[in-house]
Structures are given as C-alpha cells and as structure tokens.
C-alpha cells in the first residue's frame, strides 16, 4: 500500500503553516506504518487539541479527536476494550506535558501498549504562541516578551523516570531516523514515547529570530547528535537523538486479563 493510501486526501492541502514540521512527522509516521504492513482497520489514532492534534484528521485509520491533554486517557479506554488494535497518540508539547502531564506520566507508569508521539515545537502554535513546558529557559514567546524563566522538561528523562519501556528522540530534519524510530516504537509491546523536535516557523521561529523553516531544520541538524557521540562529549549542549530506553516489562492489558482470571476463578 502506498503512503498516500493512508491519507484522507479530501482534506488536503492540510491546515499547517508553510514549513511546519508536523507534516513531515505525518509523512514519517505513514512510512513507518507502511513498512510494518499495518491495515487501516487495525490502527486507532487518538489526539487531543492543538496544531499537532489535527494530525488525526488526515489519516484514514480509526481516529478520535478528543479533549485537550486527555488523548492518552481516551486511548487507554480504546486499548482496554480492543487490545488487538495498534494505538498511536500524537500530541503537542503543551498538550502532552502541561494539561496532559499527569495522563502522560501515569500512562507511562502503567506500561499500556501504545505509542505516544510528542511533536515538540516548543510553543502553543494554535492559540498564538504562548510558552509551553518545553519552550525552555531564555526563549521568547507571546506570553514571555522579556524571556521565559521556566526551565523546560526533558521529555526523554521524564518518560524514562515515569516508566516508559521505549523512549526515543529525533527531529523533523532526521526523517529517515524518525521513520525507523516510529516503526520500532509502534512494534514495541508496551508504552513507547517518541519525542520529535518540530519547527514552528510562524511562532517559535519568528519570536526567537530563528529564520525560515529551512534555517530551523538546519538548527536541528547542527544542534543534535547521536546518543553517546564524540561530539556530545566535546559539546554537552548538543541534544541527543536515538533510542534511550528499550526494555520489556509486563504490559497493562495482559496484566488486566490476569486480574480478570484471578477474580473469576475465585483465587487471589
């Protein structure tokens, strides 16, 4: 099946701004799904609110566009009732880590089998460029005209500490790696978190004078490196890309089945 066959072409051209990285992430996700040979009917995409969350409108899977920050909660419900389907939960940085922060850490702790994709553009784009939990110290935003004094979360560290069994990071520049990581994350049994740095030329880029979408992609290229590279040892400010955690732990739906069995057999 070709990548385009997974799209709802009637909604194209999409609503994202020129040069927005979210479309590139959509492309990488579809290529990952295609490589895995997944059928449209065996995937469910659940999203919340924000620019990133509009992604669920463009894929021809089962889709659910839900409340701000609550995508993982809805996805948990879907997964528990239909454990055989593949759950994908793309979220923005604000959606996943501000209003949805608790859902995020607890879904990770449960190790429920789904793929959380944090499309990190470091800003609330849809509502006009307010700072998010990933904007980071010293950056400019509509609501931080004298620079942000909040430190950003490190999604990888947060997800790992919360118990996610697959944790990775890449960028919208590193498209081949994004596809490969998403493919592994979707195939992984357990809660997987993939952070993908995405450029917002309209708000984050413009506010922080980072130039065009092309310049922002070049920034990803120049300011990131593979995990454990020599470049990282020489320049600790580089952001690492790759798979940080990949381990097997009992999965939530399987464990829940065991609870049912114990209850029904009268044992403990």
């Amino acid at each position, binding site marked *: 099946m070709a*990548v*385009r066959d997974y*799209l709802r072409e009637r909604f*194209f*051209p*999409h609503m*994202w*701004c*020129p*040069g*927005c*990285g*979210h*479309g*590139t992430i*959509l*492309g*990488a996700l579809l*290529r990952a799904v295609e490589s895995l040979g997944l059928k449209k009917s065996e995937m469910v995409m659940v999203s919340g609110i924000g620019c990133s969350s509009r992604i669920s409108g463009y894929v021809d899977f089962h889709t659910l566009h839900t409340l701000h920050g609550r995508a993982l909660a809805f996805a948990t419900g879907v997964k528990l009732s239909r454990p055989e389907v593949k759950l994908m939960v793309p979220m923005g940085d604000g959606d996943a880590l501000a209003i949805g922060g608790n859902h995020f850490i607890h879904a990770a702790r449960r190790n429920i089998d789904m793929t959380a994709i944090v499309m990190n553009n470091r800003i609330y784009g849809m509502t006009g460029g307010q700072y998010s939990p990933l904007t980071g110290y010293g950056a400019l935003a509509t609501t931080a005209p004298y620079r942000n004094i909040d430190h950003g979360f490190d999604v990888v560290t947060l997800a790992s500490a919360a118990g996610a069994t697959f944790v990775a990071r890449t960028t*919208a*520049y590193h*498209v*081949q790696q994004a*596809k490969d990581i998403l493919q592994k994350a979707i195939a992984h049994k357990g809660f997987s978190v993939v952070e993908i740095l995405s450029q917002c*030329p309209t708000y984050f880029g413009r506010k922080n004078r980072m130039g*065009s*979408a*092309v310049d922002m*992609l070049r920034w990803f290229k120049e300011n990131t490196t593979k995990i454990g590279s020599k470049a990282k040892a020489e320049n600790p400010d580089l952001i690492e890309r790759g798979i940080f955690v990949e381990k097997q732990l009992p999965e939530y739906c399987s464990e829940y089945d065991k609870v049912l069995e114990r209850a029904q057999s009268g044992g403990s």
Partner: protein
Amino acid sequence: MAKPKLKEHHIEREWCKGCGICIEFCPKNVLELDEKDKAVAVRLEDCIACRMCELRCPDLAIEVIVQE
C-alpha cells in the same frame, strides 16, 4: 541492488505551500520554486532519486517515481 533511476517527480501543486525545504536540502539542486511559489523539478538529469525531497516535504506534496 541497482541504483534507482528517476522516472518523474510527481508534485501535487495544490498541496505545495512553497516553503522551500525540498529545494534547500536536495543534494543535487534539482528543484526550484516557480513564479507561483510552487516547487518544480527543473534539472531532472541531476536527480539521484534519493527521495530527500519526498521525505522532508511537510505538505506531502512530492513523490519521486523511479523506473521499475
């Protein structure tokens, strides 16, 4: 495996928003923006069918079609 040989670039003009990412990151400088700010492949003979334009296009507007 033989190197893929280009047949054509299928560019969905209605979808292209003219961001220029495909042009900038093409290793062989094959693409350009036309007068309507839409991507067009102008130096087809230089294309090595690496698909970097297709993979990076945020509008999902480019498909590199290779000869079978």
